[in-house]
Each structure stands twice: as structure tokens, then as C-alpha cells.
């Protein structure tokens, strides 16, 4: 598997949407390719308008940093700041024309060789309420294409 097709993206969105609906939180989910460019985005009925761009930017951030946005969020946490000013991750804030997101809910998609081939992001499910969060929604999304892995 070298790249994500529109068909795979739709399959991921369907599974992720089902998971978000189960949680009872309408949300937006985006799938991007290895360039961080949108392949497909859906905003479920009732989800706020801002969730679309946030989900796109989360997916982009995951591809750009090759790490879940959860990790990015930890990097700017004041408690993780080093002993000297600037040794933390605050400088990340202004990167990528302000498109980097520091909210959990965006994960990179890797192939069998651990190469990043895309990303998936979700916005709309509050974190820490119940067992479902934006992160578990995106995990449900990429679990839907498990049979593509060799």
C-alpha cells in the first residue's frame, strides 16, 4: 500500500462516522494524503462549522510531523518545557502558516514499512468524556482499512 485512494478514504470516513455517532457527538472527519492534501472530508449533521477545518488541519499536522497530534499537544505543554526558555516546543506554534494543530485527534496512517502515506483527523468529540474521543474515532477510521495492509 503506497497511497490512500478515495475509495479507502470513504471506507475510513464511514467507520469513523459510525463510531462518532455511537458516542453521540456529531463531528467532522478528514482524510489526507502523504502531501497533507485533503482526499475526503465529511461534516456530520449537527457538527459545528469550525470542526471541518480543525479536522483537516489535524490530519495535515499528523502527516507533517509524522506523529499523532496528541504528541504535538504534549510538546507545547508548559510542564514539558525544558530548563531554558526555548528548549520546549513553543516554537512549533507558528509553523506551517499556523496550520499545526495541538489538539489530540489527528493520526498519521502508516503502511507495512512504517512509511507515512496519509493522515486522518477528527474534531467534534470532547476529550475525557466517556471512552470515546477524537483519537479513538480516527483509530476506528484507519482500522477500517486493515485488510489493505500486507
Amino acid at each position, binding site marked *: 500500500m503506497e497511497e490512500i485512494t478515495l475509495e479507502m478514504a470513504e471506507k475510513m470516513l464511514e467507520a469513523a462516522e459510525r463510531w462518532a455517532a455511537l458516542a453521540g457527538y456529531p463531528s467532522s472527519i478528514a482524510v489526507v494524503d502523504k502531501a497533507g*492534501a485533503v482526499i475526503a472530508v465529511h*461534516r456530520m449533521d449537527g457538527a459545528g*462549522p469550525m470542526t471541518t477545518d480543525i479536522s483537516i488541519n489535524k490530519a495535515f499536522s499528523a502527516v507533517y510531523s509524522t506523529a499523532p497530534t496528541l504528541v504535538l499537544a504534549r510538546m507545547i505543554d508548559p510542564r514539558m518545557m525544558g530548563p531554558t526558555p526555548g528548549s520546549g516546543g513553543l516554537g512549533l506554534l507558528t509553523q506551517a502558516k499556523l496550520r499545526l494543530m495541538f489538539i489530540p485527534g489527528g493520526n498519521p496512517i502508516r503502511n507495512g514499512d512504517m512509511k507515512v502515506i496519509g493522515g486522518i483527523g477528527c474534531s467534534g468529540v470532547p476529550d475525557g468524556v466517556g471512552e470515546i474521543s477524537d483519537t479513538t474515532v480516527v483509530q476506528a477510521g484507519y482500522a477500517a482499512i486493515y485488510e489493505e495492509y500486507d
Partner: protein
Amino acid sequence: MGMNIEIAKMIIKAGIQQAREMGNVCSVAVVDDRGFLVALHRMDRAPIPTVDIARDKAWTAATFRMPSSDIGRFGDPAAPGFGFNTQNWNDRLTTIPGGLPVQDGDEVIGGVGVSGGTAEEDVTVCRAALAAVFAAD
């Protein structure tokens, strides 16, 4: 009936079907009546900028309640709208053909934007997408 994700998906599906028949690759975006994105799909191998261009066209069609190609007439120096492109109130304004308002009867419930082919091809895909969905009503 307002815009919802089911209608948006149907419009996009019909549009992509039409583009495929024409041998085109493109992006199709659907926005609601306020111009906010509801769904967007980019076909395999469609260029990256088509994503934002399709979205801009859909925004323009939905908020101006007219095809994006009609916006060009505001550029006439004799018309009162001349110069509105310099006001910088929104990055999404475009005059490229390929964005049409989605209408339920007389009411505009959203917009659809297509980018990927020539201007004529994009408009054809838009029309086919809307015809496939609203013929059924």
C-alpha cells in the same frame, strides 16, 4: 429541506460519476447555505490545488446565490460593484466557472463546486451532480 451530509454525499457521488465518464479527475465540494463546508472529495490523482479551488467555488455560489461564473460581471467598471474584489473580506471569492448554488425549489440550500477540468467541463459536472439528486424529488 436544508443541506445535510446525505444530500452532500449524493451530490458528490453523482459528480464524480459524471467526471469519470468524461475521463476527468477532479475535486467536488459541497457547502451549506452559510458557505460552511459539508463534504469534499478529491478523486485519485487529481491535483492538490483543486481541493481549495472547488471549495472556493462552492462558497462563492452558495453565499452569492448565483453561479460563480456570474461574479465576473461585478468586475465591470460601469457597475456599482466594481472594486469589491479589493475589500479583502474573504479569501474564498472566485470568479472561475464551476460553482453552482444548490436549490430546493426557489430556496438556496447550499453550493457545489467542481475543479479539475476546463471551465466548461467543471460546469457540466456540477449540472450533472445537481440533476442526479434533484430529479428524484
